[in-house]
């Protein structure tokens, strides 16, 4: 098995293209959640790590740098969503914690916002609107969709509804 630290990019306005190499994360490995702000993208956690990397998402070149740390090292397989001011990392292989961090800056650690509706959820997909972030699926697998208020830094997740089927390790946008 090969672990990668490479970062590919695509043009979001073009339907047909191959990805191109932009640069590298600060570490290799999988089960990484990712979210973004207006200017920066953040890779959070992974297998036995609490590292948060960031990249400049306004350019197509450049490596990632270390921003800070999550509150825990068990956030591998966590779901990630983004608000205008904060990025949120929910769940993990043995955690129901929701971390948040400032997604407008390139330094600073995460803090605890609240809890997911279920314990030990990993392999979540995350999508967000203007006010709410949604975590879908995950272990066992299940079909649960939780939501959180992405405009605030406190508060637990609430059940919104169900996916059409129980799945884990889902991609979301």
């Amino acid at each position, binding site marked *: 098995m090969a672990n990668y630290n490479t970062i590919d990019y695509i043009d*979001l306005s073009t339907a047909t293209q191959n990805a191109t190499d932009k640069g590298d994360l600060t570490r290799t490995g999988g089960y990484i959640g990712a979210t973004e702000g207006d200017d920066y*993208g953040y890779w959070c956690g992974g297998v036995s790590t609490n590292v948060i990397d960031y990249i400049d998402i306004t350019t197509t070149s450049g490596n990632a740098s270390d921003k800070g740390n999550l509150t825990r090292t068990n956030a591998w397989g966590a779901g990630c969503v983004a608000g205008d001011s904060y990025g949120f990392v929910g769940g993990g292989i043995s955690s129901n914690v929701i971390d948040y961090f400032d997604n407008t800056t390139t330094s600073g650690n995460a803090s605890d916002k609240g809890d997911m509706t279920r314990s030990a959820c990993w392999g979540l997909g995350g999508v967000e609107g203007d006010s709410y972030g949604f975590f879908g699926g995950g272990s066992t697998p299940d079909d649960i969709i939780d939501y959180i208020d992405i405009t605030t830094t406190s508060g637990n997740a609430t059940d919104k509804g169900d996916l059409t089927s129980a799945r884990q390790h889902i991609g979301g946008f």
Partner: protein
Amino acid sequence: MKDYLTESIGDLIKNRKDLTPGAKYAYKKQMISDLLVADSDTFSSVSLDAPNSLEYAPVDPNSIVVYKESTSTYYQRYDDWTCDPAAGTITFLSTGDIEAGFNIVVEYKYYKATVSISANEILTLIKTVDGDGSGLDADTVDGMEASEFAAATHAETHENGGADEIDVGGLSGELADDQPPKAHDLAGSKHNQCTLAELNAKISDATLDDDGDERTDGDAIHDNVAAEINAIAEKASPVSGDLLIIEDSESSNAKKKVQIGNLPGGAGSDNDITPEPGSDNGYEGFYGTMTAGETLAAGDLCYLSNDGKFYQTAADDEETLGGLLAICTEALDEDDTGVFVLHGFFRHDAWSWNVGATLYMSDTDGEFSETAGSTSRIMGTAYSDDCIYFNPDNYLFTAPAAGRVYGFFGGGSSSNIIDYINITTTSGNAADKGDRTVSKSEVAGCAGDSYGFFGGGISFTNVVDYIDITTTSGNATDTGDLTVSRGLHGAVNGATYGFFGGGHT
């Protein structure tokens, strides 16, 4: 000596025509006692000495009669005596039979008689001839001499501030100037007062002058009538038949009357706008005749360019979005003038709208749309399938991307399922949108305004496929490949680019 008047003064005046003009006339009988002589006296001639001279002279020589008193003895002129009429003397040529003891009587008429006449008599007589043209001169009037009535000496001109300036109380300035009235109260004024009703009657009869004759400018209106206008009762709800007075600039500024109902937007039923014009390309509302900057068709949505002409709009062309918008109502070539509707109802039979739909500026040149363009302004509402209420707002907005309404979950547990949820609400289940091109777990995704991308997954793949995130149906399509096959990675998106990083195979 005795004096006798043998004729009244009145008779003298009446007979004056027989006399030398200016003379007076009277009789005199004089006793010449000094002529008494002795019987024996003889004399060749004798003159009347001063005491015996005729008292009143000059004398009319033809009137002289000389005789011996109380006798019939008369003495003849030239025989017995002569006279000097001017001197009033008689000279006897001989004594004749003049005898002592007798008085010689001389009777004569004389001029310049001294007359005693009263003022009343004179006044009475004057009154008989006084009147126009009588020629009488008055020495005094009311006891004043004529000289007292003579005009005072003054200069020919009366210059302001000069030596002979006119100084009359109550006047000021030059006589040619309008003289201000002296302050006075109404009770003391000499104005002819009238009530408002009377004033209105006079105004209504203003075509006639005081004599009832036609005025040459019968429709003239006063200046400075603000107070009069303020006093006129206001009508809060005019009706069509009410009249206004206007000054017709196209007819020598003549005063004319206009019915309220004839005014655009006038009172009564004329206020009504027909929301569904009766013919194709008909319009109701505010419109104007303006110039096309290019070839235009009826129904084209146009904007006013900086050259003062109208061109087709397009919601994806920033230069055409702002400012004044209008609907072209007829086919026009470049630089033609025609009617453009600025606000109101417009019917175009080629349209087919959903009634009540909000209409936007379309990305297509000159067209309306029921969906917002790239950037758009709300243009109005569909009143019917072929008629719109054109009421463009002044706000520009960028239409929200459909991906911001819906969130998508793709793959997982070795499936190709793509679910969507409404990310604007906190309840509701996911629904199926379509399928990925591959069935994978450990997938990562990122999205732009129109497309969402799923990349990689396990069993390991480098496939990237995309979906249309503005709709809730449709399968994914292959986009291309990641640089390596990977799963368990993360993805983020910026405004322009999406990034996949980490993971493993």
